[in-house]
């Protein structure tokens, strides 16, 4: 099968229920907003392939259910994620406070070098704002991650957010590839590529 992309990045959206994760993803993947959206149960993902500095990057973006109780299932999906969008709602103080918990959750369940980014959504609701932009920025600095305020509804900077995260992952990855091995021709494989012979992994494990 011919590959239609150079890299496959697995990204994850996490944050409290109702902050707009599904809407942000819908905005990015379909460029639309729908107020009749249903809440997310379990987990789903969407795909969008973007062009970045001449490379085709397939983004596989996972959307999770936000309620605490379902973290047991959703954290199972942290594995293998290369980038994580931490989303809060600028009109909801609590969702911002919870970012700390989400970060702890990532630290416990995702790989240590996963790229993270902080997203303050619903930024068009200026009159309802509870979390100032400065506080968002400050928190991002604290964790050494990037920060963007977005609106899925008004389509503000959603593209920016995903492109920024994708670019950071790409840079990091290429640096690593160069360090371990000078670039060669042919396609590159990423760890999240579907395994063609999973049974062999099983057998391998029994032999080691």
């Amino acid at each position, binding site marked *: 099968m011919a590959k239609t992309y150079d890299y496959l990045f697995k990204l994850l959206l996490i944050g409290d229920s109702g902050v707009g994760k599904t809407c942000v993803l819908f905005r990015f993947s379909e460029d639309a907003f729908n107020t009749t959206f249903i*809440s997310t*149960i379990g*987990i*789903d993902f969407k795909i969008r392939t973007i062009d970045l500095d001449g490379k085709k990057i397939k983004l596989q973006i996972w959307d999770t259910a936000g*309620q605490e109780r379902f*973290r047991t299932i959703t954290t199972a999906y942290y594995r293998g994620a290369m980038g994580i969008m931490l989303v809060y709602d600028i009109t909801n103080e609590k969702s911002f406070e919870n970012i700390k918990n989400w970060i702890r959750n990532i630290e416990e369940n995702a*790989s240590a070098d996963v790229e993270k980014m902080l997203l303050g959504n619903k930024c068009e609701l200026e009159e309802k704002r509870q979390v100032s932009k400065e506080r968002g920025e400050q928190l991002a600095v604290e964790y050494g991650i990037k920060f963007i305020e977005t609106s899925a509804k008004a389509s503000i900077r959603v593209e920016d957010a995903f492109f920024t995260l994708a670019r950071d992952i790409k840079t990091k990855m290429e640096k690593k590839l160069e360090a371990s091995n000078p670039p060669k021709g042919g396609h590159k494989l990423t760890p999240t590529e579907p395994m063609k*012979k999973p049974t062999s992994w099983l*057998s391998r494990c029994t032999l*080691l």
Partner: protein
Amino acid sequence: MEDEFDDYQECFSQEGILLKEAPPSHETYIDSIGIIIIHESKKDGEDLKKFMLEWKPNDITIDSDVQYQEWAVVNTVQKRYRTLSGTIPDPHVKFRCLKINFDIIKSFKVQNKGRQLTFYDGSSEVLCSFLFQCGNCDVLVAALKTHLRIGTSKRDRQLYVIYDSDSPEYQQLNKSFAALNIKHDHSLWDFVKNIKDNSYEGSLGAFAKVTNIVFSSLDGTRYPDEITKDDLNNSITELGDEIVHSMAPSLEDGVSSAFQLPPRKEFVRCNPLTEEQWDSQLNSSGQLEDVDDIKMSIFKGGVHPSIRKEVWKFLLDYYPWSSTHSERQALVKVKRDEYYRMKLQWKSFSKQQENNFLDYAQRKSLVEKDVARTDRTLEFYAGDNNINLQTLKDILMTYVMYNFDLGYVQGMSDLLSPILWLMLDECDAFWCFVGFMDKVMSNFEIDQAGMKEQLTNLHVLLNFVDPKLANYLVEHECGNMFFCFRWLLVWFKRELSQEDVMRFWEVLWTGYPCQNFHLLVSVAILEHERNALMEEERGFTEILKYINELSGKLDISLMICKAEGIFHQINDSDYLSDSVRPILGLPVIGTNNLDSHEQSPFESPDISSTGTQPCCSVENVRISPDEIAYEDSIGSNFL
């Protein structure tokens, strides 16, 4: 051996294992179900670690949580006490465990399609023999292979020989391991010891971790460069099949042909229960004459929409089935008062109270967010400031007061929505919703134990009906059945139209033909989609996507018919084991039936079910060194 035992630590265990043969000291435990544990010596002799096999009967440890390594509970809320979990200490444990040092075990044999494992001593006498009640011994054998020097007999691939550490074969293998430089990776061992039971969940997690470890071991980063990855792929491709076959010769075809279900009968849906039928069942005082008959009719064809509103009140245990007309009138009065009293409790909270009651405020905000996202495409709930949304919210909030421990959990609004749509009455809808919640409560509990159990049970049932598909899912990182989470949490609410979901739920509420019928419907769907699922080596991602996209495309009537057929196949099966029975609420009948399952007509049983005969002849076991196909090629292929 008892004293020595203290120097050992557990490194592997598997549950659901029936003792079939044992030394005289443990004969009383033959036919008991228990757990196998492998212990390793704590002393850091590195290469010369000692191992010990232990089997102990079940009633010592009932820990429902250990198998769910993937489900580490991360919530901060205190777990509710569950009577079934936890370890019950038993002072007599030591006397009941069967323990054998691997110094004594010289070989072992896999039989009955991997369902039976027998250990032999140096003179080829049977030490002990086990039946694997659900699944097979693959994981255990794999774990043994990781730690002991094991080869197979060329003549009998089912027979494994354990080498002494000074044998030349062992030395050679050791060298290749050293070159690989990952032998002493403890994380690797950690996951092997985490493989629990046949719970595919455990193994799934483990396999996934292997890939991570392999990546990180090889180049120290999460992004392996292409050379490493290609090399890895090549060596794996070359070796893959061979290894799988030598490790578990029956993995592919064995499972599926181990036994066969009786032929599936065709079922059709009948006409829905009509108003006339219903009325004819009511006697002069308004009591139903033959409740079972009514339930059976509903199971076979559902309820006609004209009487649905009334019938659901019975199905959802708002009205007792045996009640008279006047009793129901009285009940409604009482329940109405009760409802509005509870509603008033939260409605009369002041803003100040709410601010001081964070737990409550959070629930309220969650309810509001979800109500705004519930069935908004239905006319009934569409538009801004919709009065029905307000009612939806009021009912859910009152339920929070009614069951504060459980509170509001996402998915509940989905369950309430069709009920309110049908009842058009806040109070009736509330009590019907309470009845529904009572049936599915465990799906929403804080530790998610109910969901874990359902997903596990779904896999057990699938494995019984379509072992090939079940096995495929395990091999493709889907053994935990997470991709069916949404189906089971809200009983297919998100997969079906409003009309279909109502027809489906009323069938399920009857409790016919067995409990957990929705799991059989899930099995029917998976089986129906099996070709698509197994197409092009679909993996976890593709399978999840495929299943999610089935939403809106399911022919639920057909699936109910298929599921009914599957139920009768299972129920009529000669090989129905006790691992399947309780899931469907069928009586557990002890281990005798299991034996007939193990000794299916498709192969000649070489172990007598009475356990008095020697397991197999001496000639079968004794092998000369030149027959041994030692698997050192494995190591060198990675060099």
